[in-house]
């Protein structure tokens, strides 16, 4: 396990470097002059030259790249052109909001998804199974942003029971609609994976043995089958959590949620280069880190993984 962990960690470093490089050059080719968009209408040549020098924009691209990488190592992404705040500060300020939303969404998707999946496997080929599996495939096909609009229309505009948008100073009611929206696809997917995984496990010999011993159906499902069926579910949940944490751009935009996703989109629309670089890199970093943790957890739970090695 230790060797495997070290190996995975070592592979993480070049990947990080690659992501940093791609992020830098993507943003580098952004159209428009950042200094001009920063100073706006009122400017004189001297200020512009000075700003250019301060931001190293007068240097060739490889020098700028060097500054960018050197900054990353010190976790310094520079200062926003728009707000004048340091990028790392503003990213860290937004992250807790995204984290809360992601955690709540994950809770919904695991609790509902796993219970529906287990029941559907147990009630295999009954109306319950057909209806839930039909619903989940529609759920996977439904665009997140449209579900958000639909929920706002029904619950905020027609029924007037929940607020349509904003953070609401931490009021839980503000989190319900965005969290449900965010959780939708994942819940549907978790339910499907749980069901198919349960069905595989239920056919195993040790389940038949348990049944033959006279273990109750309930205990068979939850104590024997579910534990083993959860393995593939963990991968899905982990990957989804990683992508939610890295900022749900669509959901956060619709509900005006003050998290990382909306923050990054704003920065992109404003051409705020250091902020885009920092935020995009940070989000990719979080996503990769969560995936790494999931892989390690998976190997720890299921020792067969390590032996197979890299695909």
């Amino acid at each position, binding site marked *: 396990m230790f060797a495997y962990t070290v190996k995975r960690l070592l592979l993480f470093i070049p*990947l990080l470097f690659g992501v940093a490089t791609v992020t830098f050059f993507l943003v580098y080719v952004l159209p428009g002059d950042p200094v001009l968009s920063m100073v706006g209408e009122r400017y004189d040549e001297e200020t512009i030259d000075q700003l250019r020098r301060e931001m190293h924009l007068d240097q060739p691209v490889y020098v700028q790249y060097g500054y960018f990488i050197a900054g990353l190592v010190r976790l310094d992404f520079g200062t926003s052109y728009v707000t004048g705040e340091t990028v790392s500060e503003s990213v860290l300020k937004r992250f807790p909001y995204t984290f809360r939303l992601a955690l709540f969404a994950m809770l919904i998707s695991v609790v509902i998804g796993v219970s529906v999946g287990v029941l559907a496997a147990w009630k295999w080929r009954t109306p319950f199974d057909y209806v839930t599996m039909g619903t989940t495939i529609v759920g996977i096909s*439904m*665009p997140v942003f449209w579900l958000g609009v639909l929920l706002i*229309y029904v619950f905020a505009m027609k029924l007037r029971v929940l607020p349509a948008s904003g953070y609401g100073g931490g009021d839980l009611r503000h989190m319900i609609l965005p969290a449900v929206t965010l959780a939708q696809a994942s819940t549907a997917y978790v339910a499907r994976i749980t069901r198919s995984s349960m069905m595989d496990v239920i056919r195993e010999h040790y389940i038949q043995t348990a049944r033959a011993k006279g273990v109750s159906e309930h205990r068979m499902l939850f104590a024997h089958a579910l534990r083993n069926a959860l393995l593939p579910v963990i991968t899905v949940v982990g990957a989804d959590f990683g992508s939610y944490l*890295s900022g749900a751009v669509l959901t956060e935009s619709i509900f005006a949620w003050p998290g990382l996703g909306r923050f990054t989109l704003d920065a992109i629309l404003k051409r705020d280069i250091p902020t885009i670089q920092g935020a995009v890199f940070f989000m990719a970093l979080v996503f990769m880190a969560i995936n790494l943790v999931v892989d390690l957890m998976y190997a720890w739970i299921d020792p067969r993984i390590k032996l197979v090695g890299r695909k």
Partner: protein
Amino acid sequence: MIRQIVSQKNGLIGLFLGLLVLVSAVFAPLVSPYDPYKINMAESLSPPSLSHPLGTDVFGRDVLSRMVYGARISMEVSVLSRLLSLLVGTLLGLIAGYFGGRLDNLVMRCADVTLAYPGLLLLIAVMAAVGPSLTSLIVALGVVGWAGVARIVRAQVLSIKEREFVLAVRSLGGQSGRILFRHLLPNCVSQLIVIFSMGLGMGVMAESSMSFLGLGAQPPLPSWGSMISAGLDYLRVAPWLSLAPGIGITLAVLGFNLLGDAFRDALDPKLKHLGRRE
């Protein structure tokens, strides 16, 4: 194979929905009741009725006609971008798998980096860099999607390149190019069909998401995503503006998902966990 797809209920539904979208896209001028760009302020924001089954938008344009044309944009972006992903991904996957060694390492590490970005983030960043337009969306989606294809093709190549028929060609002095394209590529075709059909739904979803964010199709083009976001301002008085296009997206994506599943079950059940992400 077709019989196998039609024999499953889900496959049949998928085929029906997929064809519905395709037919609307191809025959949009014939199918749509009105001109999707025709402004008619007298009928601004009229609710669904017999003459306008899905109502009209703020400029009095017929929503149903715009949705039919929206199918055209979605399909165009989705099909072309998937073809581009397939082209780039297959080529690099074949090369990586066949030649192995450093080349393989380089290609696959690039794939890792591409896949290290969560969901739409890389796409959003690329679109911001090249500027929003349909052409750049097609290219961006196509380029971002290469990595998944390359991984699958490479895995397939690795599993067949030591098989007897390949060794036989090689021992007879077959050139690498010939082996790659005449012998290895045909053995990846069923995987490619599955990847393509499953990717169509993702393509539709990605196009509408980007257009919703304002980074895809630009007005007055009738994209489903931009129709939803344009309707947001009138959600209280004219909810059909935003709700109708969403049903279009859902049905299209559902159709291609079901169709992709059916293709997969018929051609290559091993690819079970494909079609996630985004």
